[in-house]
């Protein structure tokens, strides 16, 4: 290891360990993914430093570029906000995990330390005709069978992913006719749902209409808004009407609303 490489190593190795620790301790999946990406890129750099240029480039392109993006994509799909609860559900899991990990580090490092490695040969000899060429020779001559099998594996995994991600349609698509038929058959909202309420100060789709007895009805608001919890409260406008019409004390907010509405 030359001095330059050593320097690089001492810079980049702590970075990688930090990134890994980030993965371990980050609460949010996105942060974890970002730390992971850091490790991946650094890893690519290390490969290049180790005369494995092709592998390093692939590491950066494929891993950091494709795989990590895929992770981020899924994280987005699942929910960026999703964060881990720090409460451990399995009794003793965390403690044992750290203990075992410590034991592993000690044992593994002791094992590596006890081995006497011979003087590094270096790759200069085998990569005489160029890194990529040498590697290609290796892959397409000696390991071509394994390579083919890997290719098959990739195809199969793609198929598998497609099958898994594909959503089988269980019933036929509801076209307009089917929808109207279903509506009639259900005997509900035959004449269509009520429109959103129209008020003097607000006539957006998020305000519910009022029923004859003065209660607001959620059916008049688009479903999406309900799901998002973005339905506006009727009381907001009722307060205004109350102040303009003091003599008529309302029993409830809603009644007040309706009265106010009627008067205005």
């Amino acid at each position, binding site marked *: *290891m030359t001095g330059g490489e050593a320097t690089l*190593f001492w810079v980049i*190795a702590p970075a*990688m*360990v930090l990134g*890994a*620790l980030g*993965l*371990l301790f980050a609460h949010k*999946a996105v942060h*974890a*993914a970002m730390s*992971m990406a850091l*490790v*991946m890129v650094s*890893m690519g750099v290390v*490969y290049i430093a*180790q005369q*494995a240029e*092709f*592998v390093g480039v*692939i590491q950066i392109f494929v*891993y950091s570029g*494709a*795989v990590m993006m895929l*992770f981020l994509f*899924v*994280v987005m*799909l*699942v929910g960026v906000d999703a964060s*881990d*609860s720090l409460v451990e*559900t*399995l009794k003793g*899991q*965390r403690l044992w*995990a*750290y203990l*075992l*990990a410590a034991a*592993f*580090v000690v044992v*593994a*490092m002791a094992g*590596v*330390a006890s081995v006497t*490695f011979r003087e*590094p*040969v270096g*790759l200069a000899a085998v990569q005489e005709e160029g890194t990529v060429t040498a*590697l290609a020779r*290796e*892959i397409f001559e000696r390991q071509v069978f394994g390579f083919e099998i*890997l290719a098959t594996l990739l195809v*199969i*995994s793609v198929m*598998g*992913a497609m099958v*898994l*991600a594909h959503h089988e349609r269980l019933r036929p698509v509801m076209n307009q006719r089917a929808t109207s038929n279903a509506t009639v058959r259900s005997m509900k909202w035959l004449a269509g749902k009520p429109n959103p309420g129209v008020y003097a100060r607000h006539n957006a789709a998020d305000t519910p209409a009022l029923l004859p007895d003065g209660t607001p009805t959620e059916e008049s608001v688009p479903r999406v808004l309900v799901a998002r919890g973005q339905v506006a409260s009727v009381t907001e406008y009722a307060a205004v009407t109350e102040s303009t019409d003091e003599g008529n004390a309302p029993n409830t907010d809603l009644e007040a609303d309706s009265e106010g509405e009627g008067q205005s």
Partner: protein
Amino acid sequence: MTLVAYIYLATILFTIGALVVLTRRNTIVVFMGVELMLNATNLALVTFSRMHGTLDGQVYALFVMVVAAAEVVVGLAIIMSIFRARRTASVDDSNLLKL
């Protein structure tokens, strides 16, 4: 300072990856832990390749990457479908291995 330093680094990364797998419950993070472990192994392979002066280690590192990619593809698809079905990405909630 010898090439063994890389091996130590790989060991540490591998351990951290294992810890991630053992302690984190978010499936995606666990998965990333697995990737970290694979990468640590790759690092060791590449280092050994350089030590011995053969390209085998690099080839295997490449192969591991391919396998990992395949694994990621399928694994993430599985995570997606589990998430779709159960609205959660926690490993513990899906103790499907138990009858």
